[in-house]
């Protein structure tokens, strides 16, 4: 996880799977929930492309609950409510 990217985490695997389908345009990669993020269902989505604003719009439009982090230099910063 060295390159800057976004990581989404979820309370439920069903949310993760549904979000993967909703965010196809962002080419999400299904990954295990990173160890640094203690909470989560086990699946997370890694998104290496796209702008934060566009992602925020797509996440909001999905109406699927998640936490979104920007990852830079190995550090996670939560960016969306």
């Amino acid at each position: 996880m060295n390159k800057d990217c976004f990581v989404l985490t979820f309370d439920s695997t069903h949310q993760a799977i549904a979000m993967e389908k909703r965010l196809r345009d962002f080419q999400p990669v299904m990954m295990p929930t990173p160890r640094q993020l203690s909470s989560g269902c086990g699946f997370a989505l890694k998104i290496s492309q796209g702008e934060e604003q566009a992602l925020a719009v797509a996440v909001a439009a999905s109406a699927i609950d998640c936490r979104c982090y920007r990852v830079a230099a190995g550090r996670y910063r939560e960016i969306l409510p």
Partner: protein
Amino acid sequence: MMLMEERRELNAVGWECPKPIIEAKKILDDMAVGEVVITTDSAVVVHNLQSFAQEKGFYCEFSAEGNMYRVSLQKQAMTKAETVAIAPVIVISSQQFGRGSEELAANLMKSYIYALTEVSPQPETVIFINSGIFLTCQDSPVLDSLLLLAAQGVQIYSCGACLNFYDRTAQLAVGNIGNMYQFVEKMNQAANCIEIQ
């Protein structure tokens, strides 16, 4: 090579976390084998040093005298087995990971193969057999992760008979085609062989 055992003192009286842990870590990182003794007046620091030691595999003991604590963190020489983990040969014999919900199993496989790109040691070889070969072909949901593994030097083989059976030979998108003799040899010679089915 003989390793000199060092013993260092760290006076952390009045310090709050995380400073004592950071400073202790710096000292331990610098020594191959040895001990750092931290003096602190904070029970929270003692607790956090114990957690830090447990996480990093350091031996930890402490003594209390009045309001002062002395915490000893000891770094032992690692055995060869600990320092040189054995790169496994991994055999993936299904498009999915485990039995149960197909949707879950497909996503577990994606998650597993993604994790392979990030953990150490990386596999020496990954062999795809039976429906596992769909993962190495065009339109595979894990193609990017497999291309990354290949670029990192992991050998990736898909079973030629399986590609032929499923009529996917022309769609192979990562790694090489292998045959059962190669696979048997690699599995037999592997010190660590893992099958994912």
